[in-house]
Each structure stands twice: as structure tokens, then as C-alpha cells.
């Protein structure tokens, strides 16, 4: 269990003055993740919002050592850093304790970086990969990714006269990571800081690779007023759109059980990207989204109940 007082004493783990949008939720995620570790960290990031807004030369918001090399290879790059650490340590050339974290957006993780991520997880590097999942290519201007939900209006799946936004459902990357049989996989949300910090601590404590998929409401791409990011994140959890759970050595556990499962329409209503779904002719899409959420949630409940 994380202690907010203790966490706040860590000071600014990310320097202020970065250029993320007002109301962006990734800086909150970043703070939660970085503050969770008592061990020094070396971090890396895929090309994306997080990288471009925190490392504008000659400034950097990173207080930990940080590397960005390209878009599709945050996992491979950090796996190389971790390999260097292992090698130097084994040779007696380095004596510090360090943990390694790679960050990537959903584009850099679900899509172009999937191979690199899968490879790094299979190789068993001692690293945590955090996907800050805002469900589209936000840095390039809101294009659909395989994390974009059904019906979402993006610039490459626009809601038009004959097409009601994205025609396909989200890929379940968290389950793909579970299928890698790595010691720790979880879903997190910045609205539940305690849950998130605890998960990061667990992830960093395991011997081997860990993956946390964090839902990141994007005020620009999801189109909401900047003050509502955390509220929307909370509703993603309460509607079971983004269940908070973890899979430790293959064992499922729901870490935040919604007191009352809220209807998905309430969540969708708050984001302009779903506005067109509320036209009468698109009612069926909302029903489909609800049905998919229910099916996935029920499956998750069963897995958690069975403890498998």
C-alpha cells in the first residue's frame, strides 16, 4: 500500500515546465510511476507525446537518466541498457542497483512497437514496460491505432456520412502480454493513484519483465475540457471499460472492484470523439460497445474467481 505523504516527499520526479497540453494526464501517470520506485531508475521512451514534450533541447524534464531512440523500439532500446547493466555488473565494473522502465504510447506499443515489445518480454529482461494508452496516435494528430475503441472518431477513422467512426474493436494488448507468461501484467489508471503506485512497485520487484497498460485520457484527442481527465479516467474504471486488474505469475486479481458498474453511455457522452454515436441511427454501436465490455468483464471476473 502506497503512502501519499511519503510519495509527496520525493519532490518533483519530473521537472515542471514540460510542454504537455494543459489537462494532459500523462505527466500524472509519469509522476505516479517514477515516485513509486525507491531504487534509482533509468528510463526510456518511444517517440510520442511524452518524449517530444519532455525533452525539447536544451531542456529536459527528466531527472532520471533517459533515452529516446525511435518510435517502434523503446522495449529493444531499454533491453540493451539493461543488458549493459547486467554485463558491467557481472564483470565487477558497476556496483549500483538500478531498475529500468520503458514508456510508449499505444501507437508505439500496440502497433509499430509490438514486435520489439514482444521480443523484449520473451527474452526476460529485468524491465518494466509502461504503455500510456490514449487510444490513438495523438502526437501526429489523432489517427486511429489498434487501441482505438469501436466507433471512435479519429482523423483516419472519421465519423462521416456513411461511416460512424472506427469500424473495429480495440485489440486486447494486456491479454497478449499475459500470453507471454511474464511474471507481472496489469492495467492501471491515473485516477487510482494508490492502485497504480502499488502495481508499479510490484512490477519493479519481480525478477524479469513486467508490463502495465495505463489508460490515459487525452484532452485533445478524446476532446474534453482540461479539468475532466481524472473524472473520465475514473469512469473508465467504474464502467469496466478499463478494469483495474493484475496477473501475477498467471494468476488474475481484480484490484479495484467497481461499487456499481456504470453504463458505458455515460462514459462515452463525456468525449467528443463519441458524439456521433448518440445519433439514433448509431444506437446499435453503443449497444455493441456495452456488450463487448460486459463480455470481457464477465470473462475477467471468472478468471479472477477461479484464480487462474
Amino acid at each position, binding site marked *: 500500500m502506497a503512502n501519499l505523504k511519503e510519495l509527496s516527499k520525493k519532490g518533483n520526479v519530473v521537472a515542471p515546465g514540460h510542454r504537455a497540453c494543459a489537462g494532459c494526464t500523462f505527466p500524472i501517470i509519469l509522476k505516479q510511476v517514477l515516485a513509486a520506485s525507491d531504487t534509482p531508475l533509468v528510463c526510456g521512451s518511444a517517440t510520442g507525446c511524452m*518524449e517530444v514534450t519532455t525533452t525539447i533541447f536544451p531542456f529536459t524534464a527528466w531527472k532520471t*537518466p533517459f533515452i529516446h531512440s*525511435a518510435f*517502434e523500439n523503446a522495449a*529493444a532500446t531499454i533491453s540493451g*541498457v539493461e543488458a549493459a547493466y547486467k554485463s558491467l555488473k557481472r564483470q565487477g565494473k558497476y556496483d549500483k542497483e538500478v531498475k529500468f522502465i520503458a514508456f510508449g504510447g499505444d501507437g508505439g506499443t500496440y502497433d509499430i512497437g509490438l514486435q520489439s515489445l514482444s521480443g523484449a518480454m520473451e527474452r526476460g529482461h529485468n524491465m518494466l514496460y509502461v504503455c500510456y494508452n490514449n487510444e490513438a496516435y495523438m502526437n501526429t494528430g489523432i489517427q486511429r491505432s489498434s487501441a482505438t475503441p469501436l466507433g471512435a472518431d479519429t482523423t483516419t477513422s472519421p465519423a462521416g456520412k456513411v461511416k460512424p467512426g472506427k469500424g473495429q474493436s480495440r485489440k486486447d494488448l494486456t491479454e497478449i502480454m499475459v500470453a507471454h507468461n511474464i511474471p507481472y501484467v496489469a492495467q492501471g489508471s491515473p485516477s487510482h493513484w494508490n492502485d497504480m503506485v502499488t502495481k508499479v512497485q510490484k512490477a519493479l520487484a519481480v525478477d524479469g519483465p513486467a508490463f502495465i497498460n495505463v489508460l490515459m485520457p487525452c484532452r485533445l484527442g478524446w476532446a474534453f475540457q482540461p479539468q475532466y481527465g481524472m473524472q473520465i479516467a475514473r469512469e473508465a474504471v467504474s464502467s469496466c471499460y478499463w478494469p483495474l486488474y493484475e496477473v501475477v505469475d498467471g494468476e488474475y486479481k481484480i484490484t479495484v472492484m467497481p461499487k456499481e458498474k456504470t453504463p458505458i453511455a455515460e462514459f462515452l457522452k463525456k468525449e467528443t470523439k463519441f458524439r456521433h454515436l448518440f445519433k439514433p441511427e448509431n444506437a446499435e454501436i453503443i449497444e455493441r460497445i456495452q456488450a463487448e465490455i460486459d463480455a470481457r468483464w464477465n470473462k475477467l471476473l471468472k478468471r479472477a474467481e477461479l484464480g487462474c
Partner: protein
Amino acid sequence: MAITKDRIALTGNEAIALAMKQINPDVCAAYPITPATEIMQIFASYVADGAVDTELVAVESEHSAMSATIGACAAGARSMTATSSQGLALMWEMLYIAAGLRLPIVMPMVNRALSAPINIHCDHSDSMGARDSGWIQINSENSQEAYDNLIQAMRISEHPDVLLPSMVTFDGFIISHCMEPVETYSNEAIQEFIGAYKAPYALLDIDNPITVGAIDFHDFYFEHRRALAEPMLNTVIPVVEEIGREFGKKFGRTYELFETYKLDDAEVAIVVLGSTAGTAKVVIDELRAKGVKAGMLKIRLYRPFPYAQVAEVLKNVKAVAVLDRSDGLAGFGGPVFGEIRSALYDLPKRPITTNYVYGLGGRDVTLAHIASVYNDLLAIVSEGAPQNLVNYLGVRE
């Protein structure tokens, strides 16, 4: 102190794997690709037997191989990988990033044709395409040179006035799989020559955190790219010369920017890279026996390209044929031709030049092919101009 040497029969890949074992890098990332696969295969057995201290990362693609090598090198480790052809092509994006981040990665690169059509045999289209990526490129004629060049490349790349990645190239199958005698040196002598690696900046230096790979806008990008050009313009060439001499003193084989063969008084000459130089030397000896003043320039350092030095050794030649083992598809011959023409341009009296694209996809290059080029050159000298600026040698048309 005399250096212990062994003379043993090795293929090019075996010689390179042995050199890597003796270099003993901290990290190697490996991915298989014909004809370079053996290098990492042999190296993996060294790792498995505990003969090296290296952490071997058997990645899932060449893109990740270069990415992991970049991560390891930025962390402060001496880092290597190896590849060929399509593998190099898949690394493309990361080649530029390795150079842009000033990481002294050293990579054996076995020359193989690029698809399509798919072909596993030798030509130089792979490394030629990477010539503007910011990597130092050192070509090798045979296994001995590949072995020696790889050892020198460590010193060149890690030199504080350089800090750029290097690829050491040699011809696929012709050298990579051909067994010939190689003089090898003791581990101690090689370690003494390359010295310990101390990264100027390292991610693992957690008390002095650095941000690597920051974004530059129009206010800084140009300055950083200009700084990247500086070693290519001014420092790499003298460093390569200095290390080549030092290598000669220690190991008995001195290396220069290029090798000239009977070029001093030559009237006709060819410019060539890689294993074809060996074939050309035989032809030159035969022509010399007949009284023909034939010579050759074998380029060793291709990036940065030693323009001034090349012009100096070719200035008295009457006609020069540039042999390109890749086609520029530029409507103006191969890439080496462009370099040589450009290097000669400022001479008050320029040799006549012509270009031969040859040996694509491993097409055999015989003594007769090279002899025909010299015959053409003699005709060009007497006629005053070549019939064609760009020729294709040994192809059915």
C-alpha cells in the same frame, strides 16, 4: 616486446568472430542473416563456453539488434552487432540514430545484394546505401584485412575526436565463407591495443543523469548535424592514418586510407573495393609482364571519403576505370564512380574516367573480365574518350 602470432586457416566469418572474442565487448545483440549468421553463431558459442564476458542479446530483428546496441552503448558499454544486406536495410533508421547520438558502435557488415530479386550473394549495394548515414565505412579485401580492420575500428570509433560508429565490410561468401590463412594475435596484445572503454557519457551514471535522444527544433538541429559532420570533415582521416601506423608498429601490418598497387607510374588504372582487388592484382602482374603500365587503387576507407588523397595518387594516370559492385540507378553509374569523378574534378589535368558496374548478386568476376577493362582503358587512352561513360561488366544483354 614481440607479439605472439598464430597463422591459422579461417573463413572471413571465423576471423571476425575470433576478433570479436578477443575484443570481448560488454554487449552484443545478434540476429541471423545469411551470409553473416556464422559470426554471431560462433560468438554465441564463446558466450556459452564462458570465453567472453559479453551479455549476448538474441533479438527478434535487426531493427531491434541496432536498437539494443544503441541502448547498451548509451548505457556506457562497449557494444557490437553484425549484419548483412536486408538486415542492414532493416536497421536503416537506427543507423542514422547511432551516428547522430555519437555512439562508437562497431559492426562487421558482410556485403550481400539487396532484394528484389532476393539473392544471398555478394555485391555492395547494402553498405553503399548506408554511405550517408554517418557511419565510418572500412572495406576489407580478405579475411586478414577484415580481422585487422575490426580491431582498428574499435580504436577509431572510440577515439575522443571521433565518437562515431564504424562498419567493417567484407564480401559475402567470397570472403565470409572462404578459408584462407590468417595471422592472428594474442588476446593480451589486442586488449593492450584497444584499451579499456570509458564512455564520455553514460545512462548508468545515475549520479549525473543525462537525457539522450532529445528533440531538436529548427533552433538546434542544424548545429547538431553540423557538429556530426566535423569528424567526417576533419578528424577521422588523420585518426585512421595514425591508428593504421600504430597497428603496423605493433602487429607488423601497416594500414593506410587505401592501398595502391603499381600505381606510381601507371598509365591505366582501376579503382576497386573489396575482394576483387585480389583478382585485379593478378591481372596487373600479367599486364606489367607484357609492358603495360597498369595499376590499381583499392579503397579501404570509404566513409569519410579521402577525396584529396585519392586525387593525389590518381593525378598522373591517363585513364581510370571505376569498378562499382552496386548500381546507383542514378543514370550516372555506381556510387564509387561519382566519388572518384568528384575527387578528380579539381585537378588541373584530369584523367579520363569510365565506370563499370560489375559482379551484382555474386556474379563471378574473372581475370578475363578485369583484363577486358584494361584493354578498354588502353583504347580510351589512344582514342581520347570512352565509348560509354557507364558500362555493365559480365552481364548478358
